[in-house]
């Protein structure tokens, strides 16, 4: 397409908007950023930091102006403005680190924030560059048209390589610990990511397939973890014997909690499940003689490899893994073993989901998600069908929970707060509801990447939240948003929207 004639830009309106955005920022920042409260010996005092407030207000105004210009297709001013801002932010961040004289004018006191601010002009420049490239290739200048075009391309491409990609991922997962760059930390993070992948796949049965919004999924994770921990500490039951019991216990809780409330619709169900999640945590905290209270349970047994454990000096009468196979002892053996255990668990969860979608019960879940009234008319019992989805999802959470207890060696109520439920739900939704590979991708993005930035402790959760919002705005349907119904009635109109 030839370059289309650009609409004249109403600079006055744009400037007004930019000033408005700046003023709102000024208002927002005035007290919370501008005044720092300091608790000192009982009384509260304060210090001011107004420079940050003014910098934020002016910055937001300018960025608003530039982004609006990009949206209407004017690229020159945003390009220049973006580069100037980029240089300014980089200079001030470097100045602060190097201690130059101009560092006194740095925007924020915190170096991390100063470095993070660079991302904003960088993203403006990147957007201009993308728009320029699209223009050079004769793409449309209309942003929405370009996006949907890109999405359609991506979707067909993704469908073609889906299967190969899945096998490639599994191969990478199996080979990961043997790579030369794999150290203990990497494998530990990968184990954590796999735990969340398993939880995500489990929750996907409830939310993605059956369409039940569960905000208290972590309750079942907690039930599984505590079941195994108590069995192990009180009765010395081994991990592999306790595993089915922990899964069954969580499933039982799923049935007990689900039975009265599953006839509720949508958001009522969401708040009730959230309530159950909190109730179970409160009970764990307060029922101290049974659950250990806030201190949790210590010295939970570690899983063994067909009866061979991973101790350097095994107790008398038992054989250790390294002596049995004639290897030298390294602590990595246990780390790698746990990694493979959770990998197998996660893959089994996935396999189960893939297969059950083809069974009548799986079909009934998906049908129920799309239209409950129609299902009732067709003779599907909605409550029992939902109950199976709820309890099977709970069972996988329980198994993941007992793995978690075994890996950590201790459990405490702190691990089972609401935010965990929210993170698991975010993994499912960000991955694209019902998409199995999407869950993997989202878990890597949400769990794996922040783990590498442990050093930035305080800012990690802030970045996590911002990431959640941005991904949702960028791809509201999730990272891999295409979803095929398992059964096609009529190829032409068979695409259904996500969520009910």
């Amino acid at each position, binding site marked *: 397409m030839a370059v289309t004639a650009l609409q004249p830009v109403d600079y006055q309106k744009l400037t007004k908007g930019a000033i408005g955005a700046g003023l709102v920022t000024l208002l927002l920042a005035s*007290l*919370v950023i501008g005044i720092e*409260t300091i*608790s000192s010996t009982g009384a*509260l005092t304060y210090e001011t930091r107004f420079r940050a407030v003014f910098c934020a207000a002016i910055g937001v105004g300018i960025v608003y102006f530039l982004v609006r210009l990009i949206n209407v297709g004017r690229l020159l001013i945003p390009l220049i403005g973006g580069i100037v801002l980029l240089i300014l932010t980089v200079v001030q961040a470097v100045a602060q680190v190097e201690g130059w004289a101009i560092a006194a004018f740095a925007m924020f006191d915190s170096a991390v924030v100063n470095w993070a601010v660079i991302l904003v002009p960088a993203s403006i420049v990147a957007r201009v560059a993308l728009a320029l490239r699209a223009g050079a290739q004769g793409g449309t200048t209309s942003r929405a048209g370009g996006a949907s075009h890109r999405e359609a391309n991506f979707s067909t491409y993704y469908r073609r390589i889906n299967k190969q990609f899945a096998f490639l991922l599994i191969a990478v997962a199996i080979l990961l610990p043997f790579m030369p760059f794999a150290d203990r930390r990497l494998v530990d993070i990968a184990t954590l990511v796999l735990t969340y992948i398993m939880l995500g796949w489990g929750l996907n049965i409830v939310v993605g397939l059956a369409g039940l919004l569960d905000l208290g999924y972590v309750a079942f994770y907690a039930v599984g973890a505590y079941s195994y921990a108590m069995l192990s500490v009180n009765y010395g039951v081994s991990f592999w014997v306790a595993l089915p019991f922990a899964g069954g216990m969580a499933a039982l809780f799923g049935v007990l909690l689900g039975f009265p409330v599953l006839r509720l619709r949508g958001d009522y169900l969401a708040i009730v499940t959230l309530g159950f999640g909190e109730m179970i945590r409160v009970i764990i905290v307060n029922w101290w003689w049974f659950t250990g209270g806030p201190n949790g349970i210590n010295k939970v047994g570690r899983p063994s490899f067909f009866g061979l454990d991973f101790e350097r000096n095994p107790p008398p009468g038992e054989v250790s893994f390294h002596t049995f196979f004639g290897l030298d002892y390294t602590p990595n053996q246990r780390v790698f073993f746990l990694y493979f255990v959770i990998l197998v668990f996660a893959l089994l969860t996935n396999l189960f989901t893939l297969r059950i979608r083809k069974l009548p019960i799986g079909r009934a879940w998906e049908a129920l998600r799309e239209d409950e*009234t129609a299902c009732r008319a067709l003779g599907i019992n909605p409550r029992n069908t939902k109950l199976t989805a709820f309890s099977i999802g709970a069972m996988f959470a329980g198994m993941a929970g007992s793995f978690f207890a075994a890996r950590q060696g201790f459990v405490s109520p702190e691990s089972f707060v609401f935010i965990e439920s929210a993170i698991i739900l975010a993994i499912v939704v960000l991955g694209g509801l019902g998409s199995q590979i999407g869950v993997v991708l989202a878990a890597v993005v949400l769990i794996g990447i922040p783990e590498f930035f442990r050093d930035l402790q305080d800012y990690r959760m802030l970045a996590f*939240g911002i990431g959640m919002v941005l991904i*949702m705005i960028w791809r509201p349907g999730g990272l891999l948003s295409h979803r095929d119904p398992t059964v096609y009635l009529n190829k032409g109109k068979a695409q259904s929207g996500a969520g009910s």
Partner: protein
Amino acid sequence: MEVFLQQLINGLTLGAIYGLIAIGYTMVYGIIGMINFAHGDIYMLGAFNALIGFLVLFGLGVSWVPLAILLVLIITIMITAAYGWAVERVAYRPLRGSTRLAPLISAIGMSIVLQNYVQLLQGARNKPLHSLIQGGITVYEHDGFAVTLRYLQMGIVVVTLLLMIGFTLLITRTALGRAQRATEQDKKMASLLGVNVDRTISLTFVIGAALAAVAGMMVVLYYGQIDFYIGFLAGIKAFTAAVLGGIGSLPGAMLGGLLIGLIEVFWSGYFSVEYKDVAAFSVLVLVLIFRPTGLLGRPDLEKV
């Protein structure tokens, strides 16, 4: 009897605060059908703005308490309402018309952002404020146990009542209220008839945030200390209150708030403090089992 009366007074005060927050949930749910998870954190921001406002005013030498309270009320409402507006503009408006779960996740993300934003800027420690309004009247005295009604508690209940009356008038009598009810019923039709839907939704968030700001300020005065995490539990309780009263119903939100406040206080008074949250949620579950649309909610008609 004395204990009962005292708990009743305490429960009504707490319930009034929950009710004010619950209105924000129920209005947003009514108009765009989403759970605004960040609303509890908007309330927390209201509390922080009020606390900082008091601190600065006292630092500037404003020592007459009624003036300080009035000024802080105005400042807090303005800033918190701006937060409500900004959150909607940034995190929810781009997602309008997408799936139902997308705004929910965005709201959870926003809640995490706001919590950590305040934690980073103001620190994780408890923020104390010395009590500004002291004293009260003794309502009833028997065997040395005096039932007192603190002036502050009276103030909280009166302010809540006034706000409720004003708010009901706003919804039933003004052009804005009409636009809001029209948008709630049918967005497309309302926009065809000349209602600015985006603006109406924004204003809904602004009003909800303003009410939460008042609740936040009252909490600062009432408890005298806050931290960045108070929004989570208060938010969940208030949402429970909204659901209990029937989500989408404004009198329901107030009734639900009062009930949750009373249940919590009576449970901690007569049974155990540790399990007060469990009690509130159990009542919610029981009510929902027997009245799935809440106490005052209208049953949804299923269209086939």
